[in-house]
C-alpha cells in the first residue's frame, strides 16, 4: 500500500470502504445528506428535518420494549393460498420468496413484552413483506394477540404500516377486517386499553378496521393515513389533491386521531398513557345484572 493509499484509507477515501450510498442517504424530506449511522441512532428520523423513515419491524422492539422481554408468538402460521391466486407471478411463489428472505412471520410480528413497567401485547407490521398487506395470517395473528391481551389482562399496542387488505387472498382478506374488529369489541368490554399507532402508510382495509379503533390513536409525523390511496382519489375526482392531504397532521386537524407523536417521544408517550389509563381509583361500574 502506497503512502497515498494509507492516507486515503485513514480518511475513509480508500477503495476498500463501501460505496458512498451506503454511508450517506438522501433524506426524502429535506433532500439533505444524512450519515446512515446517525440516522439509525436517531431511530431512522432525519436529524435535520425530522422526516420519519420507515422503520424495520424488529427495530420497533428495540425502541419500545425493555431488553429481553419480547417473546414472539404465532410465527408458525403461514398462508395456504386457498384461491390458488396467480397474477404475473404465483402467490405461492411470492410467499416462498418472502420466507426465503428470512421473513417467516408474514407481514406482522406479534408478541408479549414489557414497555417501561407495563406488560403489553405488541403487534407491528413489516412493510417489506408484501407492503404489510393483511391476509388471513395477519388477521389471525392480530386476533390472537387481542385474545391474549384479554387472557393476560394486559394492554394492546398495534403499530400499523400497511397498504391494506391482501388482494391475493381475495374475500378472505376482506373478512379479516370484521374478524379483528369483532375481537376488539371483546377487548373493549373487558375494559383493557388498546393504543393504535399509525405509521407511514396506513391505508385501506387496515385503516378501515383495527387501526382506527384504538382507545387512543397516535400517528407518526408525516405518515400517510387514509381509506383510499391518493392515486385512487385523484383518478376518481380528477383533480390534484391539496398539500398535506391524508398526512398525520391532516388527520389531527380533522379530529380523527389523538396526537401526532415524534418517534423519539413514542415510548415516553405510551408509558404515560398506559400509566394514566391503568391508574383507576374509581371502582368499576356494577355489571348489568346488578343494575337490574
Amino acid at each position, binding site marked *: 500500500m502506497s503512502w497515498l493509499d494509507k492516507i486515503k484509507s485513514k480518511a475513509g477515501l480508500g477503495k476498500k470502504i463501501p460505496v458512498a450510498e451506503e454511508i450517506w442517504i438522501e433524506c426524502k424530506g429535506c433532500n439533505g445528506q444524512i450519515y446512515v449511522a446517525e440516522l439509525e441512532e436517531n431511530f431512522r428520523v432525519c436529524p435535520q428535518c425530522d422526516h420519519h423513515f420507515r422503520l424495520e419491524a424488529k427495530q420497533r422492539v428495540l425502541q419500545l420494549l425493555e431488553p429481553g422481554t419480547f417473546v414472539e408468538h404465532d410465527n*408458525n*402460521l*403461514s*398462508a*395456504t393460498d*386457498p*384461491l390458488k*391466486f*396467480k*397474477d*404475473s407471478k404465483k402467490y405461492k411463489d411470492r410467499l416462498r420468496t418472502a420466507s426465503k428472505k428470512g421473513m417467516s412471520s408474514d407481514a406482522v410480528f406479534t408478541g408479549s413484552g414489557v414497555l417501561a413497567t407495563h406488560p403489553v401485547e405488541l403487534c407491528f407490521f413489516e412493510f417489506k413483506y408484501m407492503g404489510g398487506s393483511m*391476509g*388471513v*395470517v395477519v*388477521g*389471525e395473528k392480530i*386476533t390472537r394477540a387481542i385474545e391474549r391481551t384479554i387472557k393476560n389482562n394486559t394492554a394492546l399496542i398495534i403499530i400499523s404500516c400497511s397498504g391494506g*387488505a391482501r*388482494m391475493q*387472498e*381475495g*374475500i*378472505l*382478506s*376482506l*373478512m*379479516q*377486517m*370484521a*374478524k379483528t*374488529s*369483532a*375481537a*376488539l*369489541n*371483546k377487548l*373493549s368490554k373487558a375494559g383493557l386499553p388498546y393504543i393504535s399507532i399509525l405509521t407511514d402508510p396506513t391505508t*385501506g*382495509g387496515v*385503516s*378501515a*378496521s*383495527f*387501526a*382506527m*379503533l384504538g382507545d387512543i390513536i397516535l400517528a407518526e409525523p408525516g405518515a400517510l*393515513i*387514509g*381509506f*383510499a390511496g391518493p392515486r*385512487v*382519489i385523484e383518478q*376518481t*375526482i380528477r383533480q390534484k389533491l*391539496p398539500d398535506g*392531504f*391524508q398526512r398525520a397532521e391532516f388527520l389531527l386537524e*380533522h*379530529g*380523527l386521531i389523538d396526537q401526532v407523536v415524534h418517534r423519539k417521544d413514542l415510548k415516553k408517550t405510551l408509558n404515560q398513557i398506559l400509566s394514566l389509563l391503568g391508574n383507576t381509583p374509581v371502582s368499576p361500574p356494577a355489571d348489568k345484572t346488578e343494575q337490574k
Partner: protein
Amino acid sequence: MVQILEFEREIFALENQIRELVSLSHMYDSVGDITHEIVGLHKKVRRMKHDVYSNLTGWQKTQVARHPDRPYTLDYIKYMFTDFIELHGDRHGGYGPSIVGGLAKFDEQSVLVIGHQKGRETQEKIRRNFGMSQPAGYRKALRLMKLAQKFRIPIINLIDTPGAYPGIDAEEKGQSEAIAKNLFEMIEIDVPIIVTVIGEGGSGGALAVGVGDRILILEHSVYSVISPEGCASILWGDKDKVVQAADALNLTAPDLLRLGIVDEIVREPLGGAHRHHKRVAILLKKALRKNLHLVSHLAPEKLIEKRHEKFRKLGEIGFEITT
C-alpha cells in the same frame, strides 16, 4: 332502453324473432297455425338462457351484478315489505343518500331494512353517488341498527355498492373510522341481522353493513376485496386484464359459499334478476323468511355468541400451522 350484455345477445335476438313470428301469425291467416314452432322456439330460448347463465365467468357475473336494470334496494323494499317509512341522517351533520334505511313490515313483523341504493336515472345516480357511500351513510346505518336493537326489531341489510366513496371529503370526515366502527359495533347488536348481497359487494363499503348472523347472496351477485378493474391495474399493471382478475379473485356466489363466506345462495329467475324484478323479490323474500326463522328463537346472548364464532372462523382455510 334495455341494456343487453354481450353474452345475452343471441338470447335477445331469438326472443325478438319469436315476438315477430307471433305478431305475424296474428296479422296474417296465411301463416297458419305455428303454435308448435313457437313452443319449440321458446324451449330453445330457455335452453340457451340455461346454458349461458349456468356458465358465467367471474367477469360476466360482475357485469350482471352491475346491470343497470338489476333491481336495487328500493325495488326490493317495494316488493318485499309494506308500510316502509324511510329514516334519514346520521345526526352528526351527514345525510348519507347512498344508503337507504327505514322501518317496514315484513309479513306481519316490524323490521329495519338498510341497503345501498345506486340510483336509476342520471340525476338520481348522481344524488346517490352511484351507491358509493360517504361516511355519513355508514353512520346513519349504525344509528338505525341501534334503534332497531333498542326496540328489539330484526335487521335486514341489502348490499349493492361498488365500494366506499374515495374522495377528499370522505377522507376528511373519516371514511376509515366510519367503516371500522360499524364492524366493531355490528358484531354485538343483539337482534337478528340477515345480510344479502343483491348486486355488487364492493370491499369495505359492502362489509360496513355486512356483519350479521346469516349472509346470503343472490345467484349472480359478486362480493370482493377489490374490483376486477382495480385488481387488474394493480397486480397485472393492465386495467384490461379484468377477466383474469375476476377469475383469480373468486368473487362469485359459488366461490363464496365454498370459502365459507356466505351461508346460502338465493337462486335468480332464469335470465337474471334484471329481467324479473318481482320474481326475484319473491324468491328473496322466501329466503329471508326462512333465515330469520333460523335465528329468531335465539336468546340475545346466544345470538351474539354465535355471531362472534362465525366471524372468528372466517379465513380458517387460509392458514396452517407449521412446525
